[in-house]
């Protein structure tokens, strides 16, 4: 019996074998291959294939979204600069973590399809399963003169397929809403959360938008108001395993780090507020037992190596990262790393005593083997690669430009907003 000829053997091969390698292809190739034939189009569009592709994308090609800000000064006609304006734009660029680790210093040009102003959106609420939820707002003149209102909207965007939804979830309300995004683990339904602190009532207004039902629904206020919700500060929630999580401090009035003196705080006041996106019910988690001293600068929560993590600076000497090995189980908090500033080859000047209050590090990602930590330093405004096994430190230089020609746009990377991302075929509707 002679060996079967190569091309004829594919005709007899069952579909599930095709999906083995097709599900490893990047989205761009798969979109193109939808044009191969009707059956390929059906296969690639099939929700089960999309799920398989997403799963493989998560494990084989973890990415992150690099958010950058582009500011261009536009000179007006007045010689005094009184009608000068600034045009601000942002871009969100998915980038491979492996590529970043291989070559951490580079220049990226923000393709126009990554720019937010074109999409009439201001910023990102979050990302999940390959979709990014953007939000936009504009001043909305209202019938009362007592408060400023904004008109808000959301747009669901898949940067890999370049599909973007219309403006959805539109509402008009007070101006300080913050937005977050995630999905209900059990059903895969995407949800957005909008929240705002109400100073008069010492409580918060929290509402959830379900992309399936296309409605906003008011839910209970935060049991403890998250950090910075009442200020203009960054209000990042960490999406993990079907929940959105915020660091909060039990206090009569919401705690804003830069406004309140950390010396009046105790570790017992810290808590994690967790919103289950399926049940839309809150849970609260305490921090590790080993967290026994209030840090000088604001601690943070995040996701590292598939674990929910909590990190902070320790005195003026170390940076500590804890992982909640089993999410929701207090006892599973495990100290992951205690990195001395010395190991990071920092030569920051702590002598005036105030740097420690402003310096913070953000652990962003871990390499696949778990040995290299990608860490952002607020002091250097740069990302540091730290291999904690070999104690190797590498500083990176990432530059993002809006255009290839130098049009005097001031560009800078917002590493504090970088988040894990995965390329997928997930549909926006």
């Amino acid at each position, binding site marked *: 019996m002679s060996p079967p000829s190569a091309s004829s053997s*594919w005709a007899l091969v069952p579909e599930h074998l095709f999906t083995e390698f097709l599900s490893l292809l990047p989205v761009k190739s798969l979109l*193109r291959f939808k044009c191969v034939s009707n059956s390929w189009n059906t296969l690639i569009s099939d929700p089960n294939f999309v799920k398989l592709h997403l799963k493989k994308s998560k494990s084989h090609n973890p990415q992150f979204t690099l958010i950058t800000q582009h500011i261009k000064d536009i000179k007006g006609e007045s010689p005094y600069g009184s009608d000068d304006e600034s045009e601000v734009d942002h871009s969100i660029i998915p980038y491979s973590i492996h590529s970043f680790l291989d070559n951490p210093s580079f220049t990226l040009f923000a393709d126009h399809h990554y720019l937010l102003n074109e999409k009439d959106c201001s910023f990102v609420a979050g990302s999940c399963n390959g979709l990014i939820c953007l939000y936009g707002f504009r001043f909305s003149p209202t019938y009362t003169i007592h408060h400023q209102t904004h008109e808000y909207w959301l747009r669901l965007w898949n940067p890999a397929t370049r599909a973007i939804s219309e403006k959805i979830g539109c509402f008009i309300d007070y101006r300080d809403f913050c937005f977050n995004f995630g999905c209900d683990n059990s059903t895969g339904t995407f949800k957005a959360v909008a929240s705002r602190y109400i100073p008069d009532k010492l409580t918060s207004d929290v509402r959830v938008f379900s992309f399936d039902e296309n409605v906003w629904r008011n839910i209970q206020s935060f049991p403890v108001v998250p950090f910075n919700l009442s200020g203009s500060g960054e209000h990042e929630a960490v999406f993990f395993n079907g929940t959105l999580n915020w660091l909060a401090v039990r206090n009569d009035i919401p705690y804003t780090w830069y406004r309140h003196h950390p010396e009046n705080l105790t570790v017992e006041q810290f808590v994690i507020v967790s919103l289950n996106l399926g049940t839309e019910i809150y849970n609260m988690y305490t921090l590790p037992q080993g967290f026994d001293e209030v840090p000088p600068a604001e601690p943070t929560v995040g996701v590292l190596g598939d674990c929910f993590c909590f990190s902070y600076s320790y005195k003026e000497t170390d940076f500590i990262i804890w992982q909640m090995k089993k999410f929701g189980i207090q006892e599973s908090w495990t100290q992951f790393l205690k990195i001395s500033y010395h190991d990071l080859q920092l030569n920051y000047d702590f002598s005036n005593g105030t740097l420690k209050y402003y310096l913070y590090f953000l652990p962003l990602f871990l390499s696949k083997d778990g040995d290299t930590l990608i860490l952002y330093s607020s002091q250097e405004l740069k990302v540091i690669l730290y291999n904690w096994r070999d104690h190797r430190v590498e500083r990176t230089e990432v530059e993002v430009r809006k255009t290839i020609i130098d049009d005097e746009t001031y560009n800078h990377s917002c590493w504090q907003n970088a988040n894990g991302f995965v390329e997928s075929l997930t549909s926006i509707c």
Partner: protein
Amino acid sequence: MAQEASSSTSSKTISLKTGDGEIFEIEASAAKQMKTVQRLIDDLGDDITIPLHNVFSKELPKIIEYYKKDITGEITKDFEAEFVKDLNDDEVKVLFLAANYLDANKLFEFLSQNIADRLESKSVEYVRKYFGVENDFTPEEESKLREERAWSFRGIKEDE
């Protein structure tokens, strides 16, 4: 060469017979990595020549070479790159299908990735030819599909 009676399984060799009648030897520990072979060994015993009707003398040595390296823990990125370097797309196809038949998971996953890598920048026409797929779109349907995702057609390889 006579085997010692007290030798462990890892030094025992198994005889495999291809669909075109050739016989190849493989270490028992390597055979264990190919679940189909292991099942046949379990059924027929390890002293019998195991028949592999759907695998041929062209590809089996290459598969054996892979698992020889695997049992000594020597599979590196360099080895894998070298392993597929001189294989054309048809040869990879044959190995992929053989690895599937043999239920040789590690090789199968490696080759799946390699096929994906080869297809990544290919044109629609190449893919149709490679898989023997007929274009059953009408010209209008096809041009609409292409227009909707014109950007995904940029930067692809010229067909060989």
